[in-house]
C-alpha cells in the first residue's frame, strides 16, 4: 500500500468523512541527539462518522494496530480517544493516530469496533464499566476489572455524582472529600 504523508492522511480523512470530519492536526517533537521526528496525528470526528473513520484506517494499513481507548470526563460531555498506530514494521516510519469523539452525557453510546478489530474487546469492556459509555452491539458486555459487588451506576473515571466517592473508606479522624474538591 502507498504510504501517505501525515498531512495527506488528515486530508484523506476530511475527504472521506465529509461533514462527519471536525478537525485534524499533526503533532511533531524532535528527540535526542539526531533530532529525528516523533509524529502523531489527531483526528476529531462526529460519532455518526466514527465507524467510517475506523474503516478508513484499514485503507491506510492492512491490520491497523489498536492500542487503547482513553476517556476523559469533561463536565457536560465525555471524550473518547481511540489510539491506533499505522505503518509499523520499519525504522522511524510508524505514525500514531488518535481518533477523538465527544459524546454528550445525555446519550453515552458508541458503536462497537470488535467486528473490525477483534482485539478491541477488552478496551470496550473497560470503557463501558469505568466510564459508563454503552458500547452498542458489543459481543461480550460483562465487567472486566470491577468486581461484582460494586453497585451498578458507579463509574470510577467519572468526575460527577456517578463517581466512586461514596464507596471510599474514610480513615478515622479524616474528613471525606467532597466531589469536585481539588488538592
Amino acid at each position: 500500500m502507498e504510504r501517505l504523508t501525515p498531512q495527506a492522511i488528515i486530508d484523506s480523512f476530511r475527504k472521506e468523512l465529509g461533514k462527519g470530519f471536525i478537525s485534524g492536526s499533526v503533532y511533531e517533537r524532535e528527540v535526542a541527539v539526531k533530532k529525528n521526528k516523533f509524529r502523531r496525528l489527531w483526528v476529531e470526528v462526529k460519532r455518526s462518522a466514527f465507524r467510517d473513520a475506523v474503516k478508513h484506517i484499514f485503507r491506510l494499513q492492512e491490520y491497523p494496530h489498536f492500542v487503547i481507548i482513553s476517556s476523559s470526563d469533561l463536565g457536560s460531555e465525555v471524550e473518547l480517544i481511540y489510539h491506533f498506530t499505522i505503518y509499523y514494521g520499519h525504522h522511524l516510519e510508524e505514525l500514531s493516530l488518535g481518533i477523538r469523539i465527544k459524546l454528550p452525557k445525555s446519550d453515552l453510546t458508541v458503536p462497537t469496533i470488535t467486528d473490525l478489530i477483534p482485539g478491541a474487546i477488552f478496551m470496550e469492556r473497560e470503557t463501558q464499566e469505568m466510564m459508563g459509555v454503552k458500547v452498542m452491539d458489543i459481543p461480550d458486555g460483562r465487567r472486566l476489572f470491577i468486581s461484582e459487588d460494586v453497585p451498578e451506576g458507579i463509574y470510577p473515571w467519572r468526575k460527577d455524582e456517578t463517581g466512586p466517592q461514596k464507596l471510599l473508606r474514610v480513615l478515622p479522624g479524616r474528613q471525606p472529600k467532597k466531589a469536585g474538591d481539588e488538592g
Partner: protein
Amino acid sequence: MAVGETKKATYTIPVGPIHPALKEPIQLLLEIDGEKVVNTDVRAGQVHRSIEWLGMNRNNPVQTIYLAERICGICNICHPFCLVMAVEQAANIPVPDRAEYIRVIAAEMERIHSHMLWAGVAAHEIGFDTVFYLTWRAREEIMDLIEYVFGNRVTKAALQFGGVRRDITAEQLPRIRQSLDYYRGIFEHLRRIFLEDKTVEARTRNVGVLSTEDALRLVTVGPSTRASGVHKDVRQDQPYSAYADLDVKAITPDIVTGMVVGDVYDRIIVRLLEVKQSVEIIEECIAKMPEGPIMSEPKMPRLLRLLTAAEGEGVARVEAPRGEDIHYVRLEEGQETMSTWKVRAPTYANLMAVPTILKGMQIADVPIAFASLDPCMSCTNRIAVTDRATGRTSVLDYEELHRLSVEKTKKLQG
C-alpha cells in the same frame, strides 16, 4: 462465547486471597473435552488497585511517578518512563540529551533482568528446575549491576520530569562493562540449553501457536507478537528518547531457524536474542552518551508550579520487556493532579490472545503456553476445569497443574 454456555450447570469461583506461591492473581476458566482445551475465559481484575484513579484524584504528577513505578515491580522503569514522556509532551518540558541515554540504559537493563526471569520461570513450568536455578543465578549479575548504578535492585526512582535523578559516572563504566561481558560470555551456554535440548524442544515446539494473522487481529504486542513473525517493536517503529539515535531492529525467530511457527519455542528464541540485543544497545549508549546536564528543571517547587500551570495532552509509548506500554495524560491549568491518566500495560493486550493460544491444547501444556506470553500476572492461581463429558466443574490448583506439566516432561524423557 463465554465458558459454560454449552453446559447445564456452572458456578462462579469465589475470588479469594492470593495464592502464597504467586505474585499476582488471574483466573482462567477452561472448558475441556477430555484432555483438550475447547474454550477459555480470562478473568482479570482481581487486584485492581485503582492506580489511575489515584493519579487523577490524589497525587500531584511528581508523586505519580513513584506510583507508576509500583504498577509493576519488574517494569519499574517502563511505566514511569512512559509517564514522564507523556507529561513532558503535555507540559512541553525539554529533556537533556544525556538523560535520554541514561533512560535507555536503565530500560535495557530492565529488559535483561525481565527476560532472564522469564527464562527461569519457563524452565520451571516444564519441570527443569536446574535450569531455573541456573538462569536466576545468571540474573543476579544484572540485579547487582542495577543496584550498583541506580542504588536499588527493584524500584529505582531514577526518572524525573525533564531528566533523570542519577548520573552514570566514568568510574562506573568498568563495572558496567564487566556485567555486559558476563552476559556475552554465557549467551552461547544459554542458547545450547534452551534451543538444542531435545526435551525443551518437544515440550515447546508447536505448543501454544499464535498465527501471524491472529497476532495482528488480536493486537498482541512485544515478544509474543514478534515470535509470530510480526515486525513490531516501538523501539524500531516509532523510536522515543535515545532509541531515535540507534538503529534497533525487531527480532523475529526466522533469524535463527529460517521459519516462523509462532509457538513457545519461537518465543524463547525472541527473548534470548533480545537479551543479547539489550547488551549491545547498552554498549552503544555508553559509547555515544553526550556530556551535559541530566535534568532540565532541578528545582522541585518550580517544576510543580510549571506542571500546575500547564495545559495540554500527551501520549507516550514504550517498548517494555513484555511489549508496548502506553500512557495518555491530560493536564488542565490550575489543577494539581492530572486530569486524565490512562495506562495500558502490555499484558492487557496479550491476554486477549490467551483463548486462541490455549485452544486445542492439553491441560498439561497450559502452564508453559500461558507463561510463554510472560503475563505480568505470572501464574494461573486456580483454573476451573469443566469436563464436557460429565458437565462437572472442578478447580485445579497451581500445584496440580504444575505436577501434570512435570509428569509430561518426565514421560517424554522416558
